[in-house]
């Protein structure tokens, strides 16, 4: 066979064949996407949508607007410098009367009280004492008589700020910031400034737990990676069994062990080391111990898989070139484990940041982390705006760290940090 006719044949069919291939490939791609689509739609409904809804609540601010619509409309043109004009007072009087009739005044009172302590009293006392709509031109005087707060500018700027429909109030509050009477962002009053401390505490606990996991996990991962596979698989049970054991069982176990009449205290007493039981739980120590226990496998597994991938030839080469063992370890082995160290530490840190159950059960009041307050504000005090704002900050931190994590484990096995 000569080459010439073959080339000619190729030249004739090249274009349609390419197009056919492209079309076939496109159909394949559409089919592939169609397989993923059900899950995407499902997650939109059960995951992304709900979280987007929560984020929306962090800036949504329509409660006051719904209860005091005329007041908000009247304040729209107010520049906030002096007291608002008679029109705004009359609008407020009308809104308060209407809200009292419909029983919605408490909704606005609650929201305004978040922004200005004592606003609940101002609004309810006004609602109680305002018998009828004031005569035209006397609204300012009437309201001022009922409650002198209406003669103060801050009362009105608070209403205007809370007029929505969206607000930065909750997000600022989550960072211990607030707006002053002139609308500038300033530090929140000390009695309300608790959230930066809370974030700091959450970070410190997560960081301590991560450090403990790394210190305890590194030698274990090294041992498991160095032993022959048969023996290391056997020892792996010690890591995997706790991993698969229910979180509640493990937390419960620590309470049984660490409580004042628990196994640890009893043993120490029996050994004559202590006379009085040590306080090992419902404090920071208990939280760190239990969380380290829960998260340690998440450190050991990525470390193990990164160490398994290190060829022993490097260490032998280092030794043959005259490196003392410690130097070889520090300069050859350790740097190669760093991706595993980074992945494991980030994973543990990310998981620790969002922890709720363990601190809630084994921590004291001073050991509760950010998740606890999000839950508290959602179910107990129904301050949904603040709960959502704290959630937004936590979510942002998690996403940023997860992006770094994604970068780190790129190229490594995707399942490195997962069970199995």
């Amino acid at each position, binding site marked *: 066979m000569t080459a010439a006719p073959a080339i000619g044949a190729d030249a004739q069919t090249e274009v349609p064949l390419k197009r056919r291939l492209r079309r076939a490939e496109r159909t394949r791609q559409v089919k592939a996407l169609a397989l993923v689509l*059900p*899950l995407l739609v499902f997650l939109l*409904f059960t995951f992304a949508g*709900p*979280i987007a809804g929560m984020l929306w609540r962090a800036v949504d601010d329509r409660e006051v607007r719904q209860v005091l619509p005329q007041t908000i409309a009247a304040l729209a043109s107010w520049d906030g410098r002096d007291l608002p004009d008679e029109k705004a007072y009359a609008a407020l009087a009308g809104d308060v009367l209407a809200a009292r009739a419909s029983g919605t005044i408490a909704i606005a009172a609650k929201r305004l009280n978040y922004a200005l302590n004592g606003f609940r009293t101002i609004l309810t006392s006004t609602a109680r004492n305002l018998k009828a709509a004031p005569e035209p031109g006397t609204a300012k005087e009437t309201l001022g008589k009922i409650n002198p707060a209406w003669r103060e500018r801050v009362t009105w700027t608070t209403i205007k700020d809370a007029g929505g429909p969206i607000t930065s109030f909750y997000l600022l509050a989550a960072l211990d910031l607030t707006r002053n009477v002139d609308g500038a962002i300033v530090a929140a009053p000390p009695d309300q400034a608790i959230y930066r401390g809370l974030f700091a505490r959450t970070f410190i606990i997560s960081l301590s737990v991560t450090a403990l996991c790394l210190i305890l996990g590194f030698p274990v991962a090294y041992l498991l990676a160095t032993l022959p596979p048969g023996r290391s698989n056997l020892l792996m049970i010690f890591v995997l069994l706790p991993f698969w054991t229910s979180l509640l069982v493990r937390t419960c176990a620590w309470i049984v062990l660490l409580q004042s009449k628990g*196994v640890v205290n009893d043993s120490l007493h029996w050994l004559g080391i202590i006379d009085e039981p040590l306080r090992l739980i419902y404090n920071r120590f208990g939280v760190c111990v239990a969380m380290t226990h829960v998260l340690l496998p998440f450190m050991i597994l990525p470390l193990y898989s990164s160490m398994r991938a290190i060829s022993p030839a490097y260490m032998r080469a280092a030794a043959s070139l005259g490196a003392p063992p410690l130097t070889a370890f520090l300069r050859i082995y350790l740097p190669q484990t760093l991706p595993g160290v980074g992945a494991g530490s980030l994973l543990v840190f990310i998981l620790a940041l969002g922890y709720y159950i363990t601190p809630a059960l084994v921590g004291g009041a001073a050991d509760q982390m950010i998740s606890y307050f999000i839950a508290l504000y959602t179910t107990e005090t129904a301050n949904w705006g603040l709960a959502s704002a704290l959630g937004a900050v936590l979510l942002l931190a998690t996403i940023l760290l997860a992006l770094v994590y994604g970068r780190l484990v790129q190229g490594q096995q995707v399942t490195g940090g997962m069970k199995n």
Partner: protein
Amino acid sequence: MSDNSSLRTPSQRIAWAATIVISTLVFIFLIAPILAIMPLSFSAGSYLTYPLPGLSLRWYDDFITSPRWMNSLRNSVIIGVASTALSMVLGTLAALGLAQWKSRFKPLVLAFVLSPVVVPGVITAVGLYFFFAPIGLTGSYLGLILAHTALATPFVVITVGATLQSFDTNLARAAASLGASPLEAFRRVILPLILPGLASGALFAFATSFDEVVIVLFMAGPEQRTLPREMFSGIRENISPTITAAAVILTTVSVILLATMEGLRRRNERLKGGG
């Protein structure tokens, strides 16, 4: 030890000995709490202390005869099985699709699909609480099943996806060239080969739902309380030995899941080694 022949210097031997000692202590730290709680469930007394006053099965009897505990066990199984089934369908389809899909958006889609694992439980729970309450899905089995499916599906996508990665697509092509329809090729060639992956995905999904408590805490009505949820309130009030019995039952389930998982892994390795 064959791998220790290279440990010649005394300092190396000391370092290795230290590794073994520390690791042993860490293994004890990991396993001791789980072991310590078990005998207490067989105690004849009602205090959670050693030495045991005597052996008895009264706390298991208490568990089995208590409608509250049995109801929670039933709920855990119902919700676990249902969300496993749903997440298997959604996750397997998605893993098959993702294995074939080529696009620069793929990492983004993958990150989105896996994100329920990383997002703190409280955030998902609060979001679902706000979202499901107005449409009547809080305090319902359906709501919990949907929520647990969302949490469990990423594990299915990961495990099934990992199996597909090692799957030789030429086998599917061979089936097609021999005249099998895509469905038949999937059923008779692909499915048997990825079955271990599917099984471990299902185990993960079930374990995720069976252990989940934060979402249940926010969304379950009194009727839907699961075993971890009952344990949570039990631990809060005071730990009775019945909770240790529940803990032993839960741990037994974990051991069964883990053993099945190990079996699957070994089988997989054998197949790979043999092939």
